[in-house]
């Protein structure tokens, strides 16, 4: 018997065009389903429809029927469906209620009426299962993006739902953490629907693949059949990180640098790191190993506690969080901030990233994938001598990633480019060489 049934589901947000069109499918207990599709194709909306958040929370025009465990989502509120299903949203920072990890994981269990004496044990078990047991007593504000994502996943898994809805659950996790998260979701016994922009992370573990395009379900097939029918960019790819020596004129050099946010807590020690004009360097390593710190030191956003950073020319840094590139009222004005308000130049940069049509829109009206590209345009426009991109492919679909890699390669002769990333496929595609911050928090050649 089907755990969830979707019949001719169509939906449009209150002020938008159709987000979902005539989707029909069934989800069976225990199956793991990969939900793929380009940015803005309706993946997150589809997950929200399964969770009952569409239409209850968002409003809009809803037609068709969604039934989960026998409950019609039009009559059952999302809070009534909670527990039967668990939802993990895209941005972990926006779904945290409490300030401490253990209270955060316990929150859902309390809402579902779990007997009080069971709550601490189940919360601790969920954290341990996701490899975050040591985070239990920590403050949420102190966690890295990857750690926070694991805590949010533990919060959902603690509910032991029958249907798990995961919206890009590994976007901030390193490859090992991502594999662990997907394995854990699979072994929970729940039916799992995972939306992903890094197909290689989910395709190996899934039974079935759904592919959305402009709100339509264009592929619903078992894994083997899906491999043959998926667009080339969505096929899993080998990721072999290139090993090479630095070459060319050094634009940035870190020598004997160390850094800690607290005096007694060293985050990074770097014997030597160099980025030269004409090369693209990928910085990889596990969550919390100091990749972002290295990026900020290289661009001068942080000053080292010891050692020396030498830079030549202008340096630009792209933050992990695209929400930080929403200062202006229009997308082109946002991009123009870095070039003294030069709007034609800003529009050219938007065009390079496929956002020409969005130039006049408010940055907050863009989808998450579009915001990522807007943020990229906001730094690329400056044509810096040193360009440091921190997780530039978060929320970006494979086709756009290929385009980004091509763009960076094309522009690489004029600058030194450093790409901090957990996306090894992208790193392999774009980089001339890779360095790792693992495992002893000391930058070494990969």
């Amino acid at each position: 018997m089907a755990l969830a049934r979707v019949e001719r589901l169509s939906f449009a947000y209150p002020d938008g065009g159709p987000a979902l069109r005539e989707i029909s499918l069934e989800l069976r207990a225990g199956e793991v389903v990969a939900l793929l599709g380009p940015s803005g194709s309706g993946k997150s909306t589809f997950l929200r429809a399964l969770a009952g958040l569409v239409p209850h929370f968002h409003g809009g025009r809803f037609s068709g029927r969604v039934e989960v465990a026998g409950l019609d989502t039009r009559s059952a509120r999302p809070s009534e469906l909670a527990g039967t299903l668990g939802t993990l949203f895209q941005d972990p920072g926006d779904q945290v209620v409490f300030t401490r990890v253990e209270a955060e994981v316990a929150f859902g269990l309390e809402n579902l009426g779990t007997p009080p004496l069971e709550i601490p044990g189940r919360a601790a078990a969920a954290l341990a299962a996701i490899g975050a047991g040591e985070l239990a007593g920590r403050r949420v504000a102190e966690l890295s993006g990857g750690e926070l994502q694991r805590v949010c996943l533990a919060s959902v898994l603690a509910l032991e739902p029958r249907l798990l809805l995961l919206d890009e659950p590994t976007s901030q996790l390193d490859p090992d953490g991502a594999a662990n998260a997907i394995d854990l979701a699979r072994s929970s016994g729940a039916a799992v629907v995972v939306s992903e922009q890094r197909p290689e992370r989910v395709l190996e573990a899934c039974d079935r693949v759904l592919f959305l395009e402009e709100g339509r379900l264009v592929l619903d097939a078992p894994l083997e059949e899906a491999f043959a029918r998926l667009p080339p960019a969505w096929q899993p790819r080998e990721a072999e990180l290139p090993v090479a020596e630095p070459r060319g004129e050094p634009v940035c050099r870190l020598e004997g640098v160390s850094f800690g946010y607290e005096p007694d807590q060293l985050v990074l020690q770097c014997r030597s790191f160099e980025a030269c004009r004409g090369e693209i360097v990928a910085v990889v390593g596990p969550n919390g190993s100091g990749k972002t710190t290295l990026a900020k030191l290289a661009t001068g956003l942080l000053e080292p506690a010891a050692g020396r950073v030498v830079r030549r020319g202008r340096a630009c840094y792209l933050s992990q969080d695209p929400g930080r590139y929403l200062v202006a009222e229009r997308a082109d004005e946002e991009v123009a901030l870095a070039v003294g308000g030069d709007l034609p130049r800003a529009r050219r940069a938007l065009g390079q990233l496929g956002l020409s049509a969005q130039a006049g829109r408010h940055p907050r009206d863009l989808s998450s994938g579009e915001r990522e590209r807007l943020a990229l345009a906001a730094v690329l426009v400056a044509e810096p001598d040193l360009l440091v991109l921190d997780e530039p492919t978060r929320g970006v679909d494979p086709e756009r990633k290929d385009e980004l890699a091509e763009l960076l390669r094309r522009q690489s002769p004029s600058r030194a480019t450093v790409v901090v990333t957990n996306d090894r496929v992208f790193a392999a595609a774009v980089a001339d060489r890779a360095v790792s911050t693992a495992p002893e928090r000391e930058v070494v050649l990969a």
Partner: protein
Amino acid sequence: MSPAPAAALLAGLVAAALLADRTASVGAIAALLFLVCLRAPARRRLYLAGAIGSGLAVVLVTPFVETIGSHVLWSGPTVPVLGQLDVTSEELRNGLFQGLRLTAVALAFSAYALLLDHDRLVQAAGFARRSVLAIALATRLVPTLERDAAGLVEALRGRGVEVSGLRGRARLLTPLLAGSLERALNLAEAMEARGYGRPGATRAPRDRWGLRDRLAPLAGALAVVLGVLWL
């Protein structure tokens, strides 16, 4: 001390500061709360500056907008709407009193925001849990905005745009407000998806109260009585 009794004690001190009618008494309560705030490990500067700054503003403005007393210390020009500007010793005293009152209330809030574990406070709430959670989330707004502002400034610096001066920082107000509204919506959605608002919710077991925890609400109540009768 557990957060619930500590919150009760702070509430008692606020009530005492509002009920007392002697400047020295209110000043003593404000000084006590100031010392408590100094125990906060981090971020206290912003809160202390806000609390003392708002109190000072009241001290400075009150003599010009009030018209009480007959002992004129300074006579100024006549201003439309406000009338003649003058400062009397009674107005100065009242300004100081009201300023200290506001400072005491703001310092009590600062102590609540900086020193109390809001998670445990929400979990300890035996009734009105929704209201306590709403207050805890609202309290988090200040540090969250602080973090967001730092993030925006860092992203701008990362593009070579320096944010300086009042005008530069004022430009961040709109995105900060819009960002916090967006975050509030996302959080509300995530809370509903995790069953918030469903009947039959339970609570994780609470810590047992020690002697100090039991004494703190009594001390808060005593402060209120003292405020009414003697301070």
